[in-house]
């Protein structure tokens, strides 16, 4: 397990405040946040590459805050992979071994397994300058795992790759995590990475942890306006709560439960809002009539904005549905959503 306790870092022009994280052993943890939130700095602090001002870093019960990077057993894979350009692939991978007391047989097995699992046997003797992006990444992963680290830090490993291969690489990473049984901590700003790979996550903003918890908590139950907005809860309204209802302006929304506070926010993911021309019977407790106020092409889907009295809701639909429903600007339409799809905080 990795734990940070009130970690504070002060760099010229950049600070991290009171970072409290706990990452279970063997887990896959993602760190998300907008650019400049301090994700990479936090990774480097865990690895001992930037100085810590106060607080503690504990790995497997041992305080490593003052240990130099080479004594921590934490590997890091950077976005640009940072392979040693003057060493061949195999020299890169074996680089860390000479600094560790290793069992020859075990090392040989690990090397063979990594070369095989990552499919890099055929490039062993090449120099990094002659590798493709995907190959560079696999070599960087092999190099990092070769020393059998306690934790593997991944700094946006997928962002520099061709989107076509992302899915394949994601499943590769997942398999690698499973077989290596190493704790993975990955920085990403791709929600698909987070949802498909991790079990726990944290969202960072302006040098602080905005929220940490299970993936489901982060995406379904954000605790602040920032996180809700960040994870794509595009329908975010300040609301007054009365009984089991939330009131936005004069729109009454059934929550199906009684919130703790009298004021707060409600958030609904756009994909949870169903559009229809006619009312229909379903388990959805909330249904409102509104008018389409905008349609935006978002590539694979359309974002439709529906004005219901003073509130504007956002829904995502496919091109097919857009066509079938005859959605056009100004058209009157029904929006429906389940009360369980509403998150209040």
């Amino acid at each position, binding site marked *: 397990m990795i734990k940070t306790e009130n970690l504070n870092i002060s760099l*010229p022009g950049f600070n991290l405040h009171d970072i409290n994280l706990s990452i279970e052993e063997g887990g896959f943890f993602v760190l998300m946040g907008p650019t400049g939130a301090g994700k990479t700095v936090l990774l*480097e602090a865990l*690895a*001992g*590459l930037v100085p810590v001002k106060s607080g503690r870093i504990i790995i497997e019960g041992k305080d490593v805050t003052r240990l*130099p*990077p*080479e004594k*921590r057993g*934490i*590997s*890091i894979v*950077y976005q*640009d992979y*940072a392979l*040693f*350009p*003057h060493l*061949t692939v195999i020299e890169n991978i074996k*680089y*860390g071994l000479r*600094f*560790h007391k290793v069992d020859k047989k075990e090392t040989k097995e690990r090397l063979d397994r990594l070369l095989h699992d990552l499919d890099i046997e055929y490039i062993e*003797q*090449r*120099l990094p300058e*002659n590798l493709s992006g995907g190959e560079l990444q696999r070599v960087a992963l092999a*190099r*990092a795992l070769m*020393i059998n680290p306690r934790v593997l830090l991944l700094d946006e490993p997928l962002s520099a790759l061709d989107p076509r291969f992302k899915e394949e690489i994601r499943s590769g990473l997942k398999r690698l995590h499973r077989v290596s049984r190493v704790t993975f901590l990955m920085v990403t700003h791709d929600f698909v990475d987070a949802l498909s790979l991790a079990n726990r996550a944290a969202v960072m903003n302006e040098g602080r942890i905005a929220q940490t918890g299970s993936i489901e908590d982060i995406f379904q139950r954000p605790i602040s306006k920032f996180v809700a907005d960040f994870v794509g809860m595009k329908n975010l309204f300040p609301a007054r709560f009365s009984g089991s209802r939330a009131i936005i302006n004069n729109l009454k929304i059934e929550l199906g439960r009684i919130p703790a506070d009298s004021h707060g926010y409600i958030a609904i993911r756009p994909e949870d809002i169903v559009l229809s021309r006619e009312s229909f019977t379903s388990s959805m407790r909330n249904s409102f009539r509104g008018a389409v106020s905008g349609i935006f092409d978002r590539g694979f889907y359309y974002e439709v904005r529906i004005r219901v009295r003073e509130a504007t809701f956002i829904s995502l639909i496919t091109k097919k549905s857009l066509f079938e429903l005859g959605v056009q600007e100004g058209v009157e339409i029904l929006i429906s959503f389940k009360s369980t799809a509403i998150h209040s905080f």
Partner: protein
Amino acid sequence: MTKKEPFFWITISCGFVIMAFILLPLTEMITAPSLSMLRETIRDKDVLRSIWLSIYTAGLAALISFVFGTPLAYLLARTDFAGKRLVESIIDLPIVIPHPVVGIAILSIAGRNYWLGQIFSELGIRVMGSVTGIVIVLTFVGMPFYVNAVKEGFEGISPRLEKVSRSLGASMFSTFCRITFPLAWRSMLVGIIMCSARAISEFGAVVIVAYHPMVAPVMIYERFEAYGLKYSQPVAVWLVSICLILFLVLRVLTSPRKKET
């Protein structure tokens, strides 16, 4: 082909003017002495001695710059600290100070009425008119070229490579030896060439600190003063050719050999 603007022709003409400006005097000087004169000059023991003195004192200056300048260049490339700009300007000072002033400055600390000069004389080290003095002067003027070239080389190496190396278990020293040095040594070589080239060409400062033993530029000047242009040219040709060959050999010996592609 599109019609070129007049500006294009201005750039081309200026280029030609500059090429001619540099090449005309040099080719004229190199081609002026006859072959027999060149042969005679190189048989002259004094000439050989002074060229050799020039080369090895410049080499020593480069070696000293390498030993002391490399860590400093690394520090300047990797860290940010208050006063870094000041340190960088101080390193550049020897480049901008007039050469005789450098000589005078060095003599003033080596003199008997300065504590360093007293220590030197007690140790039996003579600066004025000695090889030691020449090496000190050449290091003084050559060091900035070494430090700047190597600093630039270090800056071109991603700090992430060093960070990864550390995380893989290498200490700072191992990281420097295994990652930073192999990637930076080419810039160190450039630094050594720049530093020694600058040192070989030094005249103004050397002539004040040590007229004797005579380095090649001083000898060229002396021959010019005593016998005129015709007698100084052959020495100059030999100095320039030997230096060019040396640098060329250094370059070729260390040119990148492709491992495999």
